[in-house]
């Protein structure tokens, strides 16, 4: 277990009239090398939870174990900076963190903060930019002149360039167009599969959970309500409806097809294979 969280609670503005318990006795195990989705309604505490993983927020109660580090409530944490190098956190709307004169400088800002020398930082920045699909022609442009989607990708490259072991993404595709979203998700899949990065993805999109993730964690009002494998998660149909989660379109489609008499035994995982399956049956009964 690379990341384990025990009895974690977090209270915003304790001791004031604004006091708010955003996390309540959270227990979690997150496996290394997996892509895990964190879902839950707005205000359920997803962002609060992920900010604990790189020590931006410190637990009010409980403890967090990340690799060989421990963050324990009410104890002064050691070496937060090196933790931040290992757990790269991409915020909701990360484009607001861009500040350097040029794209290349901005992306190499992260590695430089971790005492990487100039040359290595630049080469890592170029690699990261290539990964997110930002071409050389943009290196010397001001990040503030880019389009929203490009800014987002540059900001994500800024974290990737730090070469973290774990990548935590807080709604990275919010506000992107469908093709931008798909490219972004493909990138995360590549990072997970080929670069062996552990990925935590906060999302509202069930298609992303179903299509890309291995595990899923459901947060409800600051508590963990479910943790499961994605493959099993959507099988327990009724429970999902109880949680007010709309299953992915593909599953809904399959369900409707079954209801009108199609016999879909094969595990069609994407739209193409489902289409083939349907075509086969239609021909048979032609």
């Amino acid at each position: 277990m690379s990341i384990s969280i025990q009895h974690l609670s977090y209270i915003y503005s304790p001791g004031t009239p604004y006091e708010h318990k955003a996390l309540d006795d959270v227990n979690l195990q997150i496996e290394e090398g997996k892509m895990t989705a964190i879902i839950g309604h707005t205000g359920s505490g997803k962002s609060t939870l992920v900010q604990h993983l790189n020590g931006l927020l410190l637990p009010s109660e409980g403890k967090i174990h990340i690799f060989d580090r421990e963050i324990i409530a009410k104890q002064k944490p050691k070496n937060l900076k090196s933790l931040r190098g290992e757990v790269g956190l991409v915020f909701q709307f990360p484009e607001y963190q861009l500040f350097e004169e040029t794209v290349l400088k901005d992306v190499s800002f992260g590695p430089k903060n971790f005492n990487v020398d100039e040359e290595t930082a630049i080469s890592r920045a170029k690699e990261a930019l290539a990964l997110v699909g930002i071409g050389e022609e943009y290196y010397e442009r001001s990040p503030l002149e880019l389009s929203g989607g490009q800014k987002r990708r540059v900001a994500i490259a800024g974290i990737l360039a730090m070469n973290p072991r774990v990548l935590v993404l807080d709604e990275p595709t919010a506000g992107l167009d469908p093709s931008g979203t798909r490219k972004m998700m493909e990138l995360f899949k590549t990072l997970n599969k080929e670069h062996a990065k552990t990925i935590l993805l906060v999302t509202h999109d069930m298609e992303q959970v179903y299509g890309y993730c291995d595990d899923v964690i459901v947060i409800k009002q600051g508590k963990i309500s479910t943790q499961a494998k994605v493959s099993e998660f959507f099988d327990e149909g009724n429970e999902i409806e109880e949680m007010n989660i709309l299953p992915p379109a593909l599953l809904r489609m399959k369900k409707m097809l079954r209801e009108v008499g199609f016999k879909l035994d094969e595990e069609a995982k994407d739209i193409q294979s489902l289409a083939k399956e349907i075509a086969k049956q239609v021909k048979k009964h032609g």
Partner: protein
Amino acid sequence: MGNITLGRYIPMDSPIHRCDPRGKIMAMLFVLIAVFFPVGWIGYGILFCLISFTIVLAKLKFNFIWRSMKPMLFMLCFLLVINILVVKTGTVLFTIGDFEIYSDAVLNTLYIAVRLLLMIMVTTCLTATTKPLEMTLGIEDLLKPFRKIGVPAHEIAMLISIALRFIPDLIEETQRIMKAQESRGVDMKEGKLKEKIMAILSLIVPLFVSAFQRAEDLANAMEARGYVPGEKRTRYKVLHMQMRDYILLGASFLTLVGMIVLSRVI
């Protein structure tokens, strides 16, 4: 940053919360002026009791006031040191080596501390019990008489209300950007000078970008809804002075008069 309490509105229901903002602003001014009169410890004692009574009425916690005061403590310590170095009157309290500390130095600092505390208590009574919107309505109405001599009352009130509206947003934005940059390895607290400058830059630039963006969005939104500066506008909320407002005004005015008299007597 998240613990800034000075000037924050506390949503609650109390007699003071229900008072007319104009009455509260005037009452606060009266008492603030009263604090400036040299009324001695007795005077300050009376003021402290009166203001504390108001705080209790407003259902505010003293803890809250204390936390507004905390940021000032550093300044007060600084003042104490200067006073100790400069003031050489009164009796000698104690000596450290060759250095003598006089009673007036400590007394003077204490005096200022008490005044500061009283001022914070009074202003908190106003800001914690008055919604920003009501505050601006109150300010606008109080400035109305000055319109004849060219004071743009409505515009000033609009400016203040926009500024008040944006303070929490900007604080939140600052925290967000700080966190984002800390995730990129920026150390906001320590570091060499060059790193500090980078840290500040990484905070200021995005903050300005987003502030200008917000300003532009707001300007567009206001224009789209037909706002023209200086044009006559109808009001959604009309303020009414009630009995309790007159009582509050009367009481604070009496306090002011009383303190003026007391300062003459002493």
